[in-house]
């Protein structure tokens, strides 16, 4: 198993009436709610937390990209990754996961090839390159990309970046959206021919095929945990079998909130309010921005709409909004895995074996969680849980999906001239 300590870097101090007073945490949250001095504290706390994860020996630390978003304050994940790369270069365990750069919004996309190559070199060949399409809120509404062009731009950017990484030559690119006479990014990546690529996705068949054919790892990144993920990973594996791919669990990853304390009771006392902050404020999005026309393909739409109309089953977000979910419900529904180390270990083992996921993007910070509590959670997880579930799927080779890194060369000591 591989465990990544992941951070959204949320604004921790949204007003208590945020969700009543403002329509959305995303696209339109008032900038006036952001206090730069508080923001300064938060950024550095969060970076300290991720650096601590490196000390604790997590397999990876991870960051991602959002725009105009009060729960994801990383419009540029690469900036955060570059800070982390200084410490990662000295670690023999931890890789650097950027999950990732939303390719369509980089102009030209060569910028991604360049910056990720810088990070790969800086980190000592330990970068995992994530290529999301990006949400409609980020890409269409906040960044104004025409939804009719988003996916085409994404695929073209992907092809351009991969060619830029693989090719030894200066080449020309005459694309639909990018025309470049000279593509020749410096530096080149430390990992040859390129860093492992992960694709965070929803449930579209197009994305499954894209990952399976290119040997990219598919990550289902939902805030609603393992039960929800199972609905997507199930069809992923079915499709994988159809296409004749191997069943390497490192081909898939899930996202999971995990909260560890001394006892089950204590976990609830310590974490519940912060989890509720996350689900009530950070998931408070305006449904007007849910999806621009054209963001999903018709194929995905048809599947999605049908299940939306079917039956009366509430969607997880709505269940949380109306406040009817108890702590136990959160656990039972799989939104969180929480409790004593023993509880979390048992649950996790069970889940990971059922899901056939080799990578877990661990969300160890939620909403308003203070720094000390996050450190505690990380430490308990790394010391009391992780070692006991590491063996799952260990019979499989992860090397296609994980960096190998290179150890640092000896630094030449300064020589005093006689």
């Amino acid at each position: 198993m591989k465990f990544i300590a992941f951070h959204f870097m949320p604004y921790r101090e949204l007003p208590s009436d945020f969700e009543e007073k403002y329509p959305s945490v995303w696209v339109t949250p008032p900038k006036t709610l952001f206090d730069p001095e508080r923001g300064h504290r938060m950024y550095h706390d969060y970076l300290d937390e991720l650096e601590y994860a490196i000390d604790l020996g997590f397999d990876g630390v991870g960051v991602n990209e959002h725009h105009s978003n009060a729960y994801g304050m990383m419009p540029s994940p690469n900036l955060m990754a570059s800070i982390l790369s200084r410490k990662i270069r000295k670690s023999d365990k931890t890789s650097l996961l950027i999950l990732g750069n939303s390719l369509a919004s980089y102009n030209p996309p060569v910028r991604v090839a360049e910056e990720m190559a810088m990070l790969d070199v800086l980190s000592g060949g330990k970068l995992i390159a994530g290529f999301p399409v990006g949400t409609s809120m980020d890409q269409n509404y906040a960044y104004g990309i025409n939804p009719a062009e988003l996916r085409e731009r994404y695929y073209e950017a992907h092809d351009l970046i991969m060619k830029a990484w693989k090719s030894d030559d200066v080449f020309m690119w005459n694309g639909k959206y990018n025309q470049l006479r000279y593509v020749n990014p410096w530096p080149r990546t430390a990992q040859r021919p390129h860093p492992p690529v992960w694709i965070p996705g929803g449930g579209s068949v197009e994305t499954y095929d894209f990952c399976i054919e290119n040997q990219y790892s598919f990550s289902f990144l939902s805030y609603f945990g393992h039960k929800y993920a199972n609905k997507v990973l199930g069809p992923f594996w079915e499709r994988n079998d159809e296409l004749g791919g191997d069943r390497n669990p490192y081909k898939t990853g899930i996202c999971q909130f995990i909260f560890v304390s001394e006892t089950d009771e204590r976990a609830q006392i310590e974490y519940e309010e912060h989890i509720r902050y996350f689900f009530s404020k950070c998931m408070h999005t305006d449904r007007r921005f849910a999806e621009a026309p054209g963001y999903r393909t018709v194929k995905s739409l048809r599947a999605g709409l049908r299940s939306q109309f079917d039956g009366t089953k509430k969607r997880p977000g709505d269940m949380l909004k109306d406040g009817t979910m108890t702590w136990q419900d959160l656990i039972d529904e799989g939104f969180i895995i929480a409790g004593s180390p023993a509880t979390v270990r048992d649950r996790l083992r069970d889940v990971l074996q059922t899901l056939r996921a080799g990578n877990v993007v661990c969300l160890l910070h939620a909403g308003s969680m203070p720094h000390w509590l996050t450190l505690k959670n990380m430490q308990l997880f790394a010391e009391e849980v992780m070692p006991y579930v590491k063996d799952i799927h260990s019979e499989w080779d992860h090397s296609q999906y994980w960096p190998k890194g290179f150890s640092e060369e000896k630094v030449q000591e300064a020589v005093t001239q006689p």
Partner: protein
Amino acid sequence: MAQPISKIIKINENVSFEVKIAGQGEPVVFLHNLGGLKWNQFLDELSNHYQVYAPHLPGTGASTGLETIRDLWDLILCYYDLFDELGLESAHVIGHSLGGMIAAELAATDQSRVKQLVAIAPAGLFREDHPIPDMFAMLPEELNRLVVLDQDSPAAQMMRYVPEDLDERTEMMIERIQNQVAAAKFLWPIPDKGLKSRIHRIKAQTLLVWGKQDGLIPVVYGEEFHRRIAHSELKIIESASHLVDVEQTEEVISLIRDFLKTSDIAFTL
């Protein structure tokens, strides 16, 4: 209501138009709005006086090839190709909203192809002092309230209709979204794709029709179009919003008929 015939017309290897055709008389091309082409009372009435050609925008109805059309310029050329296939050297063109914008572009680009232009609450210009609201970030009921004045009218009821049957409902939603997808391609994220730098080229006599209470593209835009198109007249219709053609069908039809009767002589430079 007369049933129009539906014809598929392939204009190049990528793009085909589905064109609804009805009526007899002088040819009139009708270009629909963001809601897609619906054969309604307005078109039915129009086809009592003219031969109406109503193409579906590529990507809607059975028209195909949206993904191969790069931009508005490509789209405009597709319509000229369609005119060729229909044997229309030139024709009167009527367009509503998005269709009005396309009609204006057609008249500005090749002045010989549009005989007389009727633009009903066209999109295409944008004023920061009167921004057109974001129609792609609106709940359906909010959009309905903006574009129809009388919420008890048949037009409003039609827009609220949701089929009981789940398969039908899914298909209706998909059709609605496909109409929006195609429209968004030429309107996202701000419905200003440069018409202001071309609009002065419109030489055709132009009738601008506006609902007085247009909640989507307010009348101030009518004045702007009127100012910028040399041979234009602006008619403002009482008790109507953006869907003025369906809200006040009779009046709009009669304005159009009067206008299309006029000859060049009626206009002075």
